[in-house]
């Protein structure tokens, strides 16, 4: 089991009641998928807000950053770096900086 850290954008903190950073226990390989599975298990209200319910595809205006690298287009089950799996570095869920209306 690994203990990892995930940082959420403001609106998802408000929605879920979580803080800026969430500490999660992940069984098995630590990947984007297993991290989000653990996040949604802890905070069910986040289901559907980061990835699509059916396809599990990342929502278009969100990105995943790890150790200063963009992992948004990496396979969801690809193991994350040891720094994330060990809790040294967080997985960042970032909303697009878009003004909108």
């Amino acid at each position, binding site marked *: 089991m690994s203990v990892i850290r995930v940082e959420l954008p403001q609106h998802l903190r408000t929605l879920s009641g979580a803080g800026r950073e969430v500490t999660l226990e992940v069984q098995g390989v630590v990947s984007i998928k297993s991290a989000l599975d653990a996040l949604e298990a802890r905070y069910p209200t986040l289901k*559907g807000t980061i990835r699509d319910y059916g396809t599990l595809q990342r929502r278009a205006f969100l990105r995943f950053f790890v150790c200063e690298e963009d992992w948004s287009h990496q396979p969801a089950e690809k193991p994350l770096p040891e720094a994330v799996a060990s809790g040294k570095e967080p997985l960042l869920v970032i909303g697009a900086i878009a003004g909108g209306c």
Partner: protein
Amino acid sequence: MSGVRVLVGTRKGGFVLTSDGKRDKWEVSGPHFAGWEIYHMKGSPVDPDRIYASQSSGWFGQVMQRSNDGGKTWEPVGNKFAYEGDAGTHQWYDGTPHPWEFKRVWHLEPSLTDPDTVLAGVEDAALFKSTDGGQNWTELAGLRKHGTGPKWQPGAGGMCLHTVIQDPTDAQRIYIAISAAGAFRTDDGGQTWKPINKGLRSQYIPDPNAEVGHCVHHIAMHKSRPGTLFMQKHWDVMRSDDAGDNWTEVSGNLPTDFGFAIDVHAHEPETIYVAPIKSDQEHFPLDGALRVYRSKSGGHEWEPLTKGLPQKDCYVNVLRDAMAVDSLDKCGIYFGTTGGQVYASADAGDSWAPIVRDLPAVLSVEVQTLS
């Protein structure tokens, strides 16, 4: 003492406006769900403290909220809207096939008899139902799988199911409307549906009299006459007296019959209100003068209502779900604008005053009459 609660959905949050029966002093609560689009909020007719809200965002998708205390506190409920089976395709703007994709909930219609049952009209057009207070949603797929579905096409705002009306005398009968497919009716609780667009004429589509393809903007009904419907179409104000089987135009002397909102007086089923907009190319009031028009004859003959409304330099829009009425005596009329004003009339439209004037763009207005 009686009072009213006005539920206002905006581009950046929801607001709850409350007043006593005099409707001259208001308390404003909000923004609830700050920063999110609140397409619609509506309360249960049988339990006014039960309110449902549709919260959405281009970033984070759809969230559903429920309140059990009249909008003071909220809890997220189920937000999984899965089309039944293979969703298939509808027409895209250019006429090519386009996959059906869920985007957001436009309209919530709580049951007339059960506070835990609620219907949701969504984009891309479909109707969903929850019987457990919004925790789980099931598509009433007979509508989307109606044979004309592949011909449906989005309006400029998306292919949205924006109007849901329940017949208070027949629990099996529901009316819905879709931009730009038209109006539909079920007489068996949502299992099967029929288009009810006969008499609509839309010159901007290949067959102006087509069975489907009409850009219906909104429909209103008075609860005492469930077979009589009033429609604001893209252009044209229409009326049906046979549950939508046939429609006739009642635009009469309106200066422009383009618009979005339409509603019926709470106590006078032949008194109806519209908010005319200049044209489909210019979504603001004619001549910069914000006017609600009232017909006391069920259409054809209309009078402008201007007292208290800006009569120059006003270039806001009034969206389809942004007009509502209370059932006090005299009937109160309310509407919101894309400029962030919510106007109220406590005398059936004779005079108006803003409740608030600097909210984000208003998407929807609903009113609860409280005893």
